[in-house]
């Protein structure tokens, strides 16, 4: 288990650890009201660039009609089928995909707040504070 402190500048994403880590405690200390957000990323950024990709979506209330079906008595019948429909769709590329926040701590005024956690990071630990702050992390290898 390692305990280490990091100094953050306001509104600047800071990469403090690279690789796979488990964080068990976060202590956030500021001189003004602020919010700390923690991200899982390998570079000092809170967005990433995603290419377009294909996926599927579901229509849960779908109806289709097969018209003009002839039976052996020469009747013409329209059949209606109801159910769901899964269709292919494309999600557009996003050059500024917002990475999800893994943990967030807030302070309404200058002071300190801590949280005991079990945060599992795959790429690295990026800290982002809205104000200048000091953050102490207790962590170990995942």
């Amino acid at each position: 288990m390692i305990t280490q402190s990091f100094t953050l500048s306001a509104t600047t994403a800071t990469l403090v650890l690279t690789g796979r880590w488990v964080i068990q405690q976060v202590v956030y200390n500021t001189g003004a009201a602020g919010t700390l957000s923690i991200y899982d990323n390998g570079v000092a950024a809170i967005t990433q660039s995603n290419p377009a990709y294909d996926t599927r979506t579901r229509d849960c209330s779908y109806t289709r009609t097969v018209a003009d079906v002839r039976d052996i008595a020469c009747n013409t019948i329209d059949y209606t089928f109801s159910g769901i429909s899964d269709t292919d769709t494309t999600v557009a590329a996003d050059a500024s995909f917002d990475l999800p926040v893994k943990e967030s701590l807030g302070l309404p005024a200058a002071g300190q707040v801590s949280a005991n956690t079990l945060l599992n990071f795959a790429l690295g630990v990026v800290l982002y504070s809205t104000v200048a702050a000091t953050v102490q992390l207790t962590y170990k290898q995942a």
Partner: protein
Amino acid sequence: MANYTVGSLPQINAAACSGWNPQDINLYNALPVWMIEREVMFRKKYGTFNRIYGKIPWTPNKGSTITGIIAEPPPTLRQFAFPAAVATACAKKDIIQYRERTFEFALRHHKFESPIFQWLPAFQDFVTKKLTKNIDFVLKWQEDFMSMYYRGFMFHQSPAIMFCNHDTNVIVDPAPVGEGDEAGTTGKSNAFLQAMLPGISSPGNLNIENLFYALSYLEEDASAVPYQSGSLKDDSYLNDKWCLYTSSEVWNQFINDPYLKENKACDLNIVTEGFRGSLMGRITTSLHSNPLRIYVDPETGEVSWPEPETIQENPNAPNYGQTVRSCDYRNAQFEVAFLVGMEPYSIVDVGPPPAEFAASGPDRMGSLKWNGKPRLTDRINVPCNVDGGETVAYDQNKYDEFLQIISMTVMGIAPETTRNALPIVFKRARTITTSLQ
């Protein structure tokens, strides 16, 4: 220490008790290195899909694609039933109709070869029977190839996929479905995974809690079916159970699982006896070597599927020439396990090649074989150099100086009930635990 001088040997008429005359240890011829041949054990946990899937025969001369037809039961359309009172109302009626569902499959083929062997190393090298060893490795490589083909097909064809502890989409249903390809552009594409993986939060590993979740999804939402008694030979251990295909790393982590530690029976000695038994009485685990692992580039977030192994190529390294884990595979952050029920897929029984091609005889040099059995061939074209070293032509191997191991396999897999298998993507972890540690 004083040096002793030994006179020229042999000697005659030397004085008794004169001089120290030890034998020169470097005098006679000796082999520079004493070589012994050893075989080391390799993990033999290849995929067991052949045993756990069904079998479906291929019918020749019926085209390149077979369409299977399944009678689907009609859906349950109500949760309550309110029949009319006999005395006061007319009876209503239900009209029951079943549907048919189709699936298609086609055959695939692949060839396997060794390098071309020449007779000189077999004559002078220390290790003999290199060809026999190579045949063994070609056979194991083939088995692995087919397991990877079945496993990859299952991954890309599954109609749903689970991302453990995802912020918004633990189960993606419907998920993208396709054949998959080398570039990662179809099926569950690399771009799809790149968009989804950042959402996996904590703990994010394949723990018992996440397995509960997957099991409930399969049984309740996907209407998937576990193994049923009598469906396979020797299947009693799988009756009404699911099979979890995963790695030793995940299995070893169960001993550290918070749910297990907080709920284990007092007599379950997990310290000296380890984790044992089926999970929750519903899941049996099959451990695989080289599980599917995803490497995410820390700088770009791009997804790749690294090669599991490589070779130590530094001649100065003590394990020079050894097969070892590749760096990106070892550092891969995510892994994929499969929770599998009753025969989601069937392995195609291809049968023999066409009779005219499979027959052998005095007017034939060989016959078509596609059952994957490695064999030796000397039908090799040898490059022929003129004076000056420029290659100008290929000559037949008419002096029989060269041999090669060849093998061809035709295979197929039918996606009969793909919803009975669920790929589960999770963060790799070896130390996730509670404060009870």
